[in-house]
């Protein structure tokens, strides 16, 4: 297995899918000549040309709608948002067009499109640039949501997302692009949507999470290990479809769960998981399910405040201890 960065993994996925299917094209701000704001599309313009790697004006609503229209007539656009924070300008098209056209047309038009880019807080980018928006996307039926945490997942899931016939919101992180990890060399490595991954086996408590928090959870688990607590970490990888079986499996195993997410608490995805566990595994729970998330505030700029606002390993450890009544 080759060890590459998350960025390279995404780049390979894009290149391979564009190679495999000429209907696939990449469109967004700075994706071409500039090789991508975060260099995910490095070299793709030279390789595939201006029709398939398209630099757009800064018009999120416009080029999102353009992509959806192109998808309705059979192309498979990958729309890059420099960050999902800016996609809010395009949400009308994502929610009112992409998520609904297949249904409104009685199945006559499909919308095979991927909306990708980083989400969540990076470092001191302050309030407008630091939002974890997966919970908002997840609420709308018609969309599928991927949130890979490792290079292998990034590559395998992006390839699956591009091949999927429905609109897929694909969420990355500025803080993950440089992360290195092993990626299978196999010819055509694809990870199907809806399959969670146990990132760490454990017996005492289940930490369920998604996206870049997986890594913070791993740190917490190491510390817990030292304290004699064996934590299992389940990375959902995709939020819709959702691998509920994997969630129930780990809860049945440990009887205690904590959901960890990067975003805001109120009506966050964690609440939904809690709801499903309590309704489907009520009798297996030895304690209320815990949640760890960012502070319920717009992200502040000051380094110290930002650190306080973000979900931390300490908080995860505390939450685990709480459900373990330790």
């Amino acid at each position, binding site marked *: 297995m080759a060890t590459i960065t998350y960025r390279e993994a995404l780049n390979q996925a894009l290149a391979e899918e564009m190679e495999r299917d000429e209907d696939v*094209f990449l469109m967004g701000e700075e994706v071409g000549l500039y090789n991508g704001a975060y260099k995910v599309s490095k070299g793709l313009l030279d390789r595939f040309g201006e*029709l398939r790697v398209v630099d*757009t*004006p800064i*018009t999120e*609503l*416009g*080029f*999102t*709608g*353009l*992509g*959806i*229209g*192109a*998808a*309705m*007539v*059979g*192309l498979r656009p990958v729309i890059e948002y420099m960050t999902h924070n800016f996609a809010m300008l395009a949400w*009308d*098209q994502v929610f*009112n*067009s992409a998520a609904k*056209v*297949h*249904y*409104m*047309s*009685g*199945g*006559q*038009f*499909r*919308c*095979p499109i991927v909306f990708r880019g980083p989400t969540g807080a990076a470092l001191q980018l302050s309030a407008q640039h630091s939002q974890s928006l997966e919970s908002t996307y997840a609420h709308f*039926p*018609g969309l*599928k949501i991927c949130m890979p945490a490792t290079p292998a997942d990034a590559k395998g899931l992006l390839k699956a997302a591009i091949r*999927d*016939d*429905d609109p897929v919101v694909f969420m990355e992180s500025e803080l993950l692009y440089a992360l290195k990890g092993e990626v299978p060399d196999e010819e055509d490595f694809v990870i*199907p*949507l*809806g*399959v*969670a991954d146990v990132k760490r086996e454990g017996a005492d408590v289940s930490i369920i999470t998604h996206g870049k928090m997986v890594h913070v959870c791993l740190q917490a688990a190491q510390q817990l290990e030292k304290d004699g607590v064996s934590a299992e970490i389940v990375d959902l990888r*995709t939020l*819709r*479809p*959702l*691998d*509920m*079986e994997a969630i129930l499996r780990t809860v049945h195993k440990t009887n205690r769960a904590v959901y960890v997410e990067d975003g805001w608490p109120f009506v966050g995805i964690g609440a*939904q998981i809690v709801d*499903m566990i309590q309704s489907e595994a009520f009798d297996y729970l030895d304690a209320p399910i815990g949640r760890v998330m960012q502070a319920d505030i717009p992200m502040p700029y000051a380094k110290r405040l930002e650190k306080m606002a973000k979900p931390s390993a300490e908080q995860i450890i505390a939450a685990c201890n709480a459900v373990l009544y330790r």
Partner: protein
Amino acid sequence: MAKVKAASRDRASSDSGRNAPAARTNGGLDGLSREELHALLFQMLRGRRFEEKTAEAYAIGKIGGFCHLYIGQEAVAVGAFEPLRPDDYVISAYREHVQALVKGIPARNVMAELYGKRDGCSGGKGGSMHLYSAEHNFMGGWGIVGGQIPLATGFGWAIKYRAEDRVVLCFMGEAAVNQGAFHESLNMAALWKLPVIFIVENNRFGMGTAWERVSSLYDISQKAVAYDMPAAVADGMDVLNMRAVVREAVERARSEKTPTLIEARCYRFMGHSMSDPVHGVYRTKEEVEEHKEKDPISRFIDQLRGADLLTEEELKSMDERVRAEVDDAVEFADQSAEPGDEDLYAHVYADEDVNGRLYFDGRR
């Protein structure tokens, strides 16, 4: 500023076209044969009749939701579609019943959709505002004002991507021009040379608001200057002028791949929707009556008669065919089955062959 002139030029040409029908008549009515002219009249009559029946059905509760009639604007769609090929794309807003018909969707399936029936052109899921037909390249049917404009550029992009010679007609009401989506889309269409013709149906009002009350510039075609895009103004109450202006734009789009902005000046004879009175605080009965004098259908009939291109018998039989077709459509819609339980969750996702759960309502 080249295109400002271009815009003016186009407008001039269509202006003259508009103000001197006689001139055109001598050309044998724009070089259209008697049959072709009758086809246009038939389309307009059918559209009018279809909407009248729609109003009746709505009144007795056979049709629900929002319902926006096209009565008075028939010449816009009928004239604009004449230069099109079946493989050209059309997308519109929610006042699109007649456009769907003219693009070729059978009246039966359009009416069935309004009735929310299974045989509806959207399977009963879209309704009046969301008519679709992949077979006829009728792309909807959109309820968000301006929402269809970026999508149209997407069809244009696909045409360019595949090096085809199809074109896209994108309809919108004049009120949609103020939306950011209009600005973003026209820039991309002009920048990337996409074969999209943006037709603004300026029927003077966005619900109860007159255009001049919401735009600082009255002349919509001049908005094209901001995108260095060719523009034209057409008389939306004159089917032949509509056809002539759109034809020019369609040819340019096919050959040079350039988009065009066309302002079609027309007028809405009915209320904004079925729940809106014909006239009210925003326009007087007199104003409406005055515009009805210029009814595009009677005007075209007079024009044909004046040129000895239409006999009473022909008109009568045409009218009979129209009534027969529309009555049949209503009958069909009435008979068509309601969607079944299995339809509720059908088509939310095109690809449900995935692991894990897609639905979270515990009902499925």
